[in-house]
């Protein structure tokens, strides 16, 4: 075991991929000379050279599209879209090409592309730079979507992504880069479609992913002090979704709270709520609660931003609401 930051775990995952397979290359804005907007690829240009660490123009559509084409052509691109907000400019390539080419070609054309991007708010970057759009990608058949909350999962999920033959959106969170966690020295992977019970409990199930998972764990700690034993499920993978783990937990606790950072209305959390009520209706003692971002564009001002984003307190309140 060694203790790594989330940033370092991802860096290491990338280095490993680059060293193991010379068809792998990285492509994105400011990943080379600048070292990555979040310093994840710092030093990479020196180690791997320009052929494999490709700084691109600011042109998200062709960055992703060229990643798709390159993947079709038998190499292994890892494309970075600096933040998920900018993926809106590449939406057509992601949704109409990456996700659909395998299907539209009747299974002929594979797109083993990994798109790394950063989701979420909390750094006062305001409305256009603070969105959590991974739920949209999780709506699209043909894409896989994962969102690690810990260094362990970050490394393990990335390894799986590199083995995938279907396009994967790998969602990071900027507020987690400095967070630390244990990571085994020996090889391991975290498969897609496997949620993890990150804390056991019997009274209520809290379901979440990415940074909200960390908040959920904190909330569970606080609740424990008040005698409430919350089970915390980390989805890790939004598509494919590990319905079994969710249902098993809810069948045990009979109560569930879904926590996500994005806007509540039409958010991916609604999918989880719907699934639970469809498949575990008779187990539920209370309505499944949703804790999510307020339905407003993200304001810049710090107190407003804090008011808009889900907090530990919101999670605790939601749990208490159904106890």
């Amino acid at each position, binding site marked *: 075991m060694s203790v790594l930051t989330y940033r370092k775990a991802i860096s290491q995952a990338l280095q490993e991929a680059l060293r193991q397979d010379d068809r792998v290359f990285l492509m994105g804005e400011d990943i080379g000379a600048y070292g990555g907007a979040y310093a994840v690829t710092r030093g990479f240009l020196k180690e791997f050279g320009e052929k494999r660490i490709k700084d691109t123009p600011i042109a998200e559509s062709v960055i992703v599209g060229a990643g798709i*084409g390159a993947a079709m052509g*038998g190499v292994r691109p890892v494309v970075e879209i600096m933040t998920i907000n900018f993926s809106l400019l590449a939406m057509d390539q992601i949704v109409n090409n990456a996700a659909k080419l395998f*299907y539209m070609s009747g*299974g*002929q054309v594979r797109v083993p592309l990994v798109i790394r991007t950063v989701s979420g708010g909390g750094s006062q970057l305001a409305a256009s730079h603070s969105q959590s759009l991974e739920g949209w990608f999780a709506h699209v058949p043909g894409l896989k979507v994962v969102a690690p909350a810990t260094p362990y999962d970050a490394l393990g999920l990335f390894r799986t992504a590199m083995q995938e033959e279907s396009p994967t959106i790998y969602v990071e969170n900027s507020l987690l880069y400095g967070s630390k966690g244990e990571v085994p020295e020996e090889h391991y992977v975290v498969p897609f479609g496997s949620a993890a019970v990150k804390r056991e409990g019997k009274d209520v199930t809290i379901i979440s992913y990415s940074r909200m998972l960390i908040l959920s764990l904190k909330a569970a700690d606080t609740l424990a002090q008040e005698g409430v034993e919350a089970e915390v499920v980390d989805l890790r993978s939004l598509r494919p979704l590990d319905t079994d783990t969710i249902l098993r937990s809810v069948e045990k606790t009979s109560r569930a709270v879904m926590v996500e950072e994005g806007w509540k209305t039409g958010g991916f959390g609604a999918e989880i709520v719907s699934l639970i009520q469809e498949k575990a209706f008779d187990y539920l003692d209370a309505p499944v609660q949703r804790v999510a971002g307020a339905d407003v564009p993200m304001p810049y001002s710090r107190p407003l931003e804090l008011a808009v984003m889900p907090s530990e307190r919101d999670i605790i309140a939601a749990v208490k609401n159904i106890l």
Partner: protein
Amino acid sequence: MKLAEKLDLSKEELINFLRQMLLIRRFEEKAAEMYMRGKIGGFLHLYIGEEAVAVGAISCLKPEDYIVTHYREHGHALVRGIEAKRIMAELFGKATGTSKGKGGSMHLFDASKGFMGGYAIVGGMMPVGVGLALASQFKEEGRVTMCFFGDGAVNQGEFHESLNLAALWKLPIVFLCENNGYGMGTHVDKTFSGSDISKLAERYDMPCCQKIDGMDVLVVRDEVMKWVERARNGGGPSFVEVMTYRFRGHSMADPLEYRNKQEEEKWKKRDPIPLFKKRLLAEAVVSEEEMALLQKEVDREVEEAVEFAEKSPFPSLESVYEDVYV
């Protein structure tokens, strides 16, 4: 036969050019008929009138090269050697089609022939083409990508992003703009501000030629060959604007109210097939009889394609869930 000689084309090759043009024409006339009879659904975009472009341009490629193109791509697919019957079966939505019935007319693929797809989103194939060229460069394969698109795609942001990146990284790709004067019902003068599409490419420090005559298959062949070879030899991307005309509507639904008869007649006088036939006859490459025979062969091939498509089964309902993920 000056040009053909200069191009170093054998009699067989010349006949094959004619044969391919005849095949496209007949295939699409038949497809239109089948569409009217309800055998084909969705959008059907005919290439009739533009045959010389696909034939001339694709003749410059090697088997390992890549093609990406738009939704008006029956011609490109046929020239690339995808069997007419598999294309027709795809149009019929049958299990024996190129995409097992999942793609339809706008999404023809044959990865084994480097035919990496018809794309129905205007401009959407351009970044993909850039990526295929990037893979070739990365692996040092010498494969060239030929990227077809229409005059309408020129105004999409992806056009700009793709040309810039290809030029910046000196990728082995030929951008081939099929300028048929219209994007759907809108004339190119109403959509593109510059006077000359091909000149746009210069500004990325990408070579481009003058507008070339897309009704003469040998002109297309001659011009495109230079750029394909240049790309293969590490010279980077280039841009070719080919002037052509679709004789039919944008799709089968098009009432064709936006263009006038004179214009149509003017272009139809330069129909690439009679034009090429005349030349072959004049230079005694093929006789009238041989041509009639050729036409017969092509007719039979298309008849067989329809028969094959007709007789083929629809895909099983379970197949709906296949090919979503690898």
